[in-house]
């Protein structure tokens, strides 16, 4: 079912002479409870077994790139919030990082710390919500998601206090952040970080030994490492298969080289590993948060030389990426020296992680498709942009 020769590509076709009448064509989505939004798959089934699976995109294609090419650099910032709408602050950072690279803007130390704190809190939100959603995909719609969203609300309260919005933060600026931490924010965050460990313990107890989870996730959706790298898969998906590649370590951006943390790696790369990797990543995120909160320096929260209005980066191009919660989130910007970007491209991890969806699902049952899709952790705002 899965060829171990990773490189050559062959479009999966039905075996010649296969009796087409015996096959069932199912269109899964775009309105379907388990497709995480308006994703659609055209699945061909032989009994229960998947023989072909073609994803259909574009039901949430909101023309983000085209709109961004018509507005100023700053005006694109609130739009990046709406890419991966579960973790807006990572998107903010990725975009600010790309523009800073494009224009050569320095970021003050305090702003870097604030960014790390916010990005790691975002990772917590994303992975916690993922736990709820993957259980929902297995039919346990309710309790897991309730616990996940209960903790998510606590982090969102912090975000609201700092950025003014629960989700759509629009917080990062080129050369720093929009405003400083309000009084007492760091202490509140510190309390949350302390309380999050016990919550993770509880969540792990709740999920890890669960027979349904074990039965449905183990040995589902593995692919060889080389295939995954060749398919552009990044993030927890790749690390679950045992590839030690995390941009925070491989190409440290911001100030990540100052923190001590480890990169959790899986061994098999099945859906179970992907869930466990996210648990371990949350624990590492808590470590980073603890260190960042302890070391948080005083100082400027934004580069005073950075301009808000009339910002024009020099002619050139830049590609910058960060380790988003879902994988490598990159921005490719081309400037022609005017106030609008000439080309604005998002490298969406959710979209590219779907490249190998068909390979993972072939030969498995339809019910496994839902788990595999859930374990990829897509957000449609980012898939279709």
């Amino acid at each position, binding site marked *: 079912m899965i060829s171990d020769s990773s490189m050559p590509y062959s479009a999966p076709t039905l075996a010649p002479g296969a009796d087409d009448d015996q096959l069932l064509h199912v269109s899964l989505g775009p309105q379907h409870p388990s497709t995480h939004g308006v994703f659609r798959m055209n699945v061909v089934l032989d009994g229960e077994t998947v023989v072909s699976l073609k994803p259909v995109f*574009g039901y949430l294609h909101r023309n983000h790139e085209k709109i961004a090419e018509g507005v100023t650099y700053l005006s694109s910032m609130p739009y990046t919030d709406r890419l991966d709408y579960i973790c807006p602050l990572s998107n903010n950072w990725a975009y600010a990082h790309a523009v800073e690279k494009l224009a050569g803007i320095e970021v003050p130390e305090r702003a870097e710390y604030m960014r790390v704190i916010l990005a790691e809190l975002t990772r917590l939100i994303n992975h916690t919500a993922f736990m709820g959603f993957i259980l929902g995909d297995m039919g346990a719609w309710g309790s897991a998601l309730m616990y996940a969203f209960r903790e998510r609300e606590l982090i969102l309260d912090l975000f609201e206090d700092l950025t003014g919005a629960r989700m759509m933060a629009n917080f990062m600026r080129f050369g720093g952040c929009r405003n400083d931490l309000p009084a007492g924010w760091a202490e509140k965050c510190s309390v949350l970080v302390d309380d999050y460990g016990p919550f993770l313990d509880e969540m792990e107890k709740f999920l890890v030994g669960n027979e349904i989870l074990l039965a449905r996730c183990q040995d589902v959706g593995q692919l060889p490492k080389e295939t995954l790298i060749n398919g552009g898969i990044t993030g927890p998906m790749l690390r679950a298969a045992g590839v030690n590649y995390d941009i925070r370590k491989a190409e440290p951006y911001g100030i990540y080289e100052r923190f001590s943390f480890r990169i959790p790696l899986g061994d098999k790369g099945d859906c179970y590993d992907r869930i466990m990797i996210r648990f371990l990543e949350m624990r590492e995120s808590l470590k980073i948060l603890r260190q960042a909160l302890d070391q948080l320096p005083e100082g400027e929260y934004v580069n005073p030389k950075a301009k808000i209005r009339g910002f024009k980066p020099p002619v050139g191009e830049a590609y910058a990426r960060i380790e988003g919660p879902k994988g490598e989130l990159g921005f490719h910007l081309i400037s022609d020296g005017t106030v609008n970007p000439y080309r604005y491209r998002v490298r969406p991890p959710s979209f590219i992680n779907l490249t190998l969806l068909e390979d993972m699902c072939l030969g498995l049952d339809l019910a496994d498709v839902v788990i595999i899709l859930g374990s990829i952790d897509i957000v449609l705002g980012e898939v279709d942009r």
Partner: protein
Amino acid sequence: MSVDIGAALQGIHAALPAAKVAMRTNPGPSNQHSLLVGNESLVDVLRFLRDHLDFDLLSNVSGVDWPDPAKADAVAVFGEGEETAREHGFLEVVYHLYSTSRRVGPLVLRARSADRGENACVPSVVSVFRSAEFQEREIFDLYGVIFTGHPDLRRILMWDEFVDHPMRKDYVAPDDYEYEPTPHDDVLVKAKRHYPAES
């Protein structure tokens, strides 16, 4: 870590003497220079980079529309000993490669189509990198670059009946302007077009 693009270029020249590869410098402060690769040798160059220089992760594929070739040359400035600038506009595909084992990147490659019309062709690299599959389909959909050799070149984001390539700079959106109480700039232009008699 940033990539040593000179060494990569030398390696390509040594291994593939026939390949047309030229260095283009980036005038901006990002220090990301690129290699302009001829279409006929693009797949070979990428395969060489993957197999011999360990650039195993094709992270990003961007399409760019350049109706004005002078602008393209301003962003990717000529290296030494390259032929003259183009006369017509063209479509460009930019590849960003990384190495997961050596942890370097990005290595930026560019490929350009002959024009923006019928010959807007660039060879597909799906046979070397699977990750290009959906991204090339997206560029075909939004820019109209025809990737020769792509196994499944269909529209991906827009519906199949759609005929335009909306990310091109000269794309005109359909006139679905109506009730926009706060018009200015482009919307105002659209408003005037929509209500010609009244304005």
